[in-house]
């Protein structure tokens, strides 16, 4: 199975056309297999008692962060539907919806970057050497975010920046209210842009599938609730986090 597809440019030279969309099925099937295996393993394992959501509450996500998260979630889903459905044969007028959603995503990511750099604790998302020991040592509890959550964030950051960067170059190739399309990018360069956009999209599909799966797992549902309502219970905090490393209310 090829990673890229190729074509002849107008001079007869072989150039990259873009990502091979045969990979989509590989990505979908692989994500499904990983999720199914994980679900089976956890179903077989003895379940620990789940902490109660009743009792005192502690803040986990501020309203601004929750709004950002759900705007990003909606735009990414819209972008995937409008970008991928026509490729698999569900054709509709997708382009305008796609670029508008892309601009909303870009604006929200820029907002998030500025906010994290100047108003948030950037280190809360940094992966340290101690974080890497977490999965292998049951006595180690994470701070605000587990190493899995930090890894997901890092991967999504890289992929979203790649998809936005390549998307903005492609955006210059179409008519918008602000400019008329130029079609002036060299075919070989354009091929790389489409390849980056396509591969990062495929990787995002896998990551989002995993993200949704973990967000819906019974033992992780309290994190999803916190992304909606903003809080977790004190019992959930103590069962899953190290109070020495995360003092709720002091950082977002």
């Amino acid at each position, binding site marked *: 199975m090829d990673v890229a597809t190729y074509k002849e440019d*107008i001079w007869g030279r072989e150039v990259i*056309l873009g990502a091979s969309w045969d990979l989509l099925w590989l990505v979908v099937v692989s994500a499904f297999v990983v999720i199914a295996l994980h679900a089976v393993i956890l179903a077989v394992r003895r379940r620990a008692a789940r902490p109660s959501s009743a009792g005192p509450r502690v803040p986990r996500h501020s309203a601004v962060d929750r709004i950002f998260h759900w705007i990003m979630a909606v735009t990414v889903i819209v972008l995937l539907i409008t970008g991928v459905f026509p490729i698999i044969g569900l*054709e509709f*007028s997708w382009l305008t919806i796609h670029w508008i959603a892309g601009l909303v995503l870009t604006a929200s990511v820029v907002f998030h970057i500025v906010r994290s750099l100047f108003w948030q604790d950037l280190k809360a998302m940094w992966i340290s050497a101690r974080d890497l020991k977490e999965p292998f040592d049951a006595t180690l509890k994470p701070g605000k975010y587990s190493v899995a959550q930090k890894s997901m964030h890092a991967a999504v950051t890289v992929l979203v920046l790649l998809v936005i960067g390549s998307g903005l170059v492609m955006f210059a190739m*179409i*008519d918008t209210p602000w400019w008329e*399309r130029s079609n002036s*990018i060299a075919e070989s360069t354009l091929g790389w842009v489409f390849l980056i956009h396509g591969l990062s999209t495929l990787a995002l599909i896998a990551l989002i599938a995993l993200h949704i799966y973990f967000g819906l797992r019974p033992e992780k549902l309290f994190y999803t609730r916190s992304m909606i309502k903003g809080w977790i219970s004190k019992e959930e905090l103590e069962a899953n986090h190290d109070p020495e490393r995360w003092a709720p209310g002091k950082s977002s």
Partner: protein
Amino acid sequence: MASHDVMPDIELYQPVELSDALDLLERYGDDGWLLGGGQDTYGWLKDRAKHPKAMIDLNGIDSLHGIRELADGLEIGAVTTLVEMIGDPVINRDFGLLSQAAGRVASPQIRNVATLGGNLVQDTRCWYYRRGLSCYRAGGNLCYADSPQGMNREHALFGASRCVAVSPSDTAIALVALEATMVAASLDGERLIPAEKFFAGPDTHITRMTSLDPGEILTAVRVPSKWAGQRFYFEKVADRNVWDFALVSIAAAMAVQGNVINDARFVCGGVACKPHRLRKVERAAVGMTLSEESADTLALLASEGAKPLTYNQFKLPLMENLVRRAVRG
């Protein structure tokens, strides 16, 4: 690109039943190619720009031939030749617009073999695409015609979405003006598609010209009697008077009573990837009298919203003048 005098090696099927043709189309999928008069097909295949494995000739299927009167209008089989349509007394009596359009297709020799279905579903004539370049329409990632050096004199003024190719069909604009319905058959049954929705723009279907789904065959066209015997106007402007595609064409149907336009359909060809309805002109025309003033007023509305390319700005006054002439009659 190599061009050949001979056809490539290809399996030829000549079914006599529609069900057999549908089975073959199902069996071959993307590798199957439907053949009507062959006037679009043979160019593609001889140029080796398309590589189907099997050609399914529809001409032997009797049910796809002929012109039949219905309770409300008439039905024309998809492989009815253009010459048969041009000579048909009912079409000439009631739907002169259609016989005029068919009479302006290509050349007499081509009209002898070209079919209505073939004329409607034919592919665009953008030469970058026809040359076999990997443009958007061919599954690629750019439009050569719309690049800074692109030659786009014949290309679109309206509805471009990445691809700027135009529909080359002369009969398409007449059928949209007459509010025809296309009959599409598949193994799942029959589907009726209004002519206006039958033709597809690049915003939805960038690699095909119609909304026919894979596995579907256009079997007939039904023309309702709504516009029968009304005032029609057809004109096609091309670089040559025969054997050429339209730079701009117009098909107009007007219901006129006492010199007042009660209803109207104006459709232009050669300006978009599908027949382009002039809705502003149609709305403004209702209630107007047929006069020089009306013609001038309506003409100015024709090109509103156009986005000309580098070399096709001449199409704007051409469209306006065709509307003017249509109203003048």
